[in-house]
């Protein structure tokens, strides 16, 4: 499979804190990758660095053959790199429709507002929010806002989609619905990197898992292999659990 994203020794430092150390990673077209790790491991920072929200302090990011390390966020968004936010970031005063329309409008130069709204309707329908199209984003429920976030990301016709905890705070029915959507996107050929805490979703959806811990990449491979990797279990669930898993396993 041809690669779509390559990280070469990417680092990010916040003052005294080394949030990312020397991360090297390749993402191939059509993959669905789970990016996991305990709280504070650096997952969101990684996504921020790739999307240009926080610039890397070292290393390089190559997207679709282009070095985007120093490229501004809006440029990489237009290149086909899109994301959702862990804490949803809607345009609060806009209707759901206009939220999605904004994404359709600005990701493609020359798009008209009218055409963008038309397109937005399709994406809203896809995530099941057509009934809420006229509703102000701030008044949507959390689950709806998460789906809105997804519709926004899709409206940008991404080549690579980062999903940052799309399921956090959702109930199990909502999670199932979201999982189905992700499956469908993967089937449509969109490359996906998802940060996810719900392991059942990760295992259900992802073909590959990457584990971060304390800013380091500690595992990268098939779900089975990664999940039985003692370093992962120790990092993710604590040393004692790792020992017990060893005893039982």
């Amino acid at each position, binding site marked *: 499979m041809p690669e779509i994203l390559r990280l070469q020794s990417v680092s990010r430092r916040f003052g005294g804190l080394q949030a990312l150390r020397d991360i090297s990673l390749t993402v191939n077209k059509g993959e669905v990758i789970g990016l996991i790790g305990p709280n504070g491991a650096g997952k969101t920072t990684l996504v921020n660095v790739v999307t240009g929200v926080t610039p890397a302090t070292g290393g390089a990011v190559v997207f679709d053959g282009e070095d985007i390390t120093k490229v501004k966020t809006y440029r990489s968004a237009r290149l086909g790199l899109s994301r959702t936010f862990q804490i949803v970031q809607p345009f609060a005063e806009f209707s759901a429709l206009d939220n999605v329309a904004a994404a359709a409008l600005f990701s493609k130069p020359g798009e008209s507002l009218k055409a963008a709204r038309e397109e937005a309707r399709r994406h809203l329908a896809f995530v099941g929010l057509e009934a809420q199209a006229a509703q102000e984003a701030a008044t949507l429920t959390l689950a709806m806002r998460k789906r809105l976030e997804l519709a926004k990301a899709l409206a940008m016709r991404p080549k690579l989609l980062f999903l940052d905890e799309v399921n956090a*705070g959702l109930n199990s029915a909502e999670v199932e619905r979201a999982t189905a959507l992700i499956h469908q996107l993967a089937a449509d050929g969109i490359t996906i990197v998802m940060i996810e805490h719900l392991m059942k979703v990760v*295992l259900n959806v992802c073909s590959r898992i990457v584990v971060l811990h304390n800013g380091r990449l500690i595992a990268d491979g098939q779900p089975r292999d990664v999940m039985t990797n003692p370093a992962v279990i*120790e990092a993710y669930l604590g040393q004692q*659990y790792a020992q017990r898993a060893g005893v039982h396993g």
Partner: protein
Amino acid sequence: MAETNIVELKGLRAGYGEVQVLWGIDLAVPTGEITALIGSNGAGKTTLMRALSGLIPVQSGSYLSGGVDLSTANAVTILSHGIVHVPEGRRLFGAMSIEDNLLMGAYSRRVSSTELKRDLNRVYTTFPKLFERRYQAAGTLSGGEQQMCAIGRGLMGAPKLLMIDELSLGLSPLLVEQLVAALRTLNAEGMSILLVEQDVITALDLCHSAFVMDMGRIVRSGSGQDLLADPIIGEAYLGVLKS
């Protein structure tokens, strides 16, 4: 007179503005015990702690401590009842020295300087590292030292109930062990502890009893050992190993 529960919640609801996060929490923290609160990210644990310490208002339901209704109390009043919150991410005053951070912990208590000295010394005895660096800016400490400082700052508030959010976050196992040992000692001296912890085993091994949260509700409670064997823990939290 000793109450059996230092905190008792019935049907507590809270959230941020229009977004409701907690949907009726029933929970009791027994006096003198260590209670753990576990659950996945976004389950509402931190929100619950913020409601308990008065950082966000309680929308409805009851919140009693020692027979006193605290549901409408502000942070200062709640502190005066000995309920002290060590927040997630430590939230130290980074530019202030360790000692100044500790002194801030005692801010709400109007006590003599000798008493302050004594309490400071107690914290320094518990965490000797802090004493060594007491004039160093808290922001320059390592993660483990920061957590010690945060707990120490909490201790300076003379807590009856110490609430710690994410004790082990970002810490090495050795450090976690040290902190756990310190908490056991404090508990043995009579302090009640409410712990939010993502290292499930650490939490369940340490606590007397635990509550499992999901989607803003308490979905299970029981002793630590019972819960370790409970399949719901796997559902909510440890799904990974069961597959």
